[in-house]
């Protein structure tokens, strides 16, 4: 088995969307921790790290990853690895841009433990104003909080720094 980011599997995974935030792939999200392909190219093992303990998307993602790879590999193994814990620091720069375009403010800055501070959005993803306020600390998925732009009055999701 060899680990490489240029393998066929990696390319396939770049097209597997997160079920809750379909603008991001599982690669963008930073939850693919390892991809190992057998030397003859028939088997692949993917290691995933869940975002939040209770995120209902976790099992869907594992299923989608398996289904996508089974089209190209005879044997697919999907493993779960909890440690080190997932962090939004693993989101790619591209992921930040995609989120913003999608209307979700990306996490601002790097995480610090014990993480009482999940950061504040740098700008409204709709109008770009920095004049924003928190409406609720919890949102439609575990990874998001609900914010509002004071300038354009539109509510928006903020992906919490985590």
């Amino acid at each position: 088995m060899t680990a490489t980011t240029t393998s066929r599997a990696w390319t396939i995974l770049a097209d597997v969307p997160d079920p809750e935030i379909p603008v991001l792939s599982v690669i963008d999200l930073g939850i693919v921790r390892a991809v190992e392909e057998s030397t003859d190219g028939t088997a692949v093992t993917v290691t995933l790290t869940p975002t939040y303990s209770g995120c209902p998307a976790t099992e869907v993602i594992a299923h989608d990853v398996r289904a996508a790879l089974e089209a190209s590999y005879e044997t697919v193994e999907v493993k779960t690895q909890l440690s080190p814990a997932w962090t939004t620091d693993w989101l790619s720069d591209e992921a930040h841009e995609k989120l913003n375009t999608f209307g979700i403010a990306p996490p601002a800055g790097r995480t610090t433990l014990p993480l009482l501070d999940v950061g504040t959005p740098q700008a409204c993803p709709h109008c770009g104003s920095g004049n924003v306020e928190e409406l609720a600390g919890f949102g439609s998925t575990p990874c998001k909080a609900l914010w509002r732009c004071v300038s354009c009055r539109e509510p928006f999701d903020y992906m919490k720094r985590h």
Partner: protein
Amino acid sequence: MKSATSNVRVPSVDVLADGCLILSHRLSEWMSNAATMEEDVALGNIALDLLGQARGLLQTLGDEDQLAYFREPQEFRNPVICELPNGDFAVTMLRQLFVDAWLSLVWPALAATTDDERVRGVAEKAIKENAYHLRHSSAWVSRLGDGTEESHRRMVGAMDALWSYRGDIASDAWYDVTEPVLSEATLTMPPRDAWTQRSSADGWHSEHLGYLLAEMQSLARAHPGAQW
């Protein structure tokens, strides 16, 4: 992480798993009943995190469904405070503060001491989630205690209802975490040496756990092995 590991009793994994599971179920009872939609969503998210943590731990102990759905009340090891009825929002939030404060000490201590890599993984993940829960419960306790005459009165009532149930979760470090929040909430912390209820460690529970489990386990027991 303060001196979290120094004077904190690290509970056994079953105590922690059951505590997260039972409190998660209690919080889920607020779904569609909370005072605001935002709070409905918040309590749902916290319940979901706790459920994920419980599952992660139960999986290290055996078959998670078997453990969650087919044990009797006396076999559960959760702190009794987790199974108490939700009461009003004041009781729910003060209990949440008490349990969040306990978990804020327990998760780092467990991550630092466990030999089980899977348990450590759950704990490391939970440290971050718990910090956010503690922020939420602290903010509400402070807001309600230092709020209107009625919200203050209800928080005082919540304190009366819950203080004797701290026995399973309190430690010197726990008092250190909760006291500043209560102080900001203009609530008087009752004496640390006040009487406490019996501990769940010997299998003792309140009458409420049986009713909770009857609801939580009914589907699995009516249809053993059911799949979605």
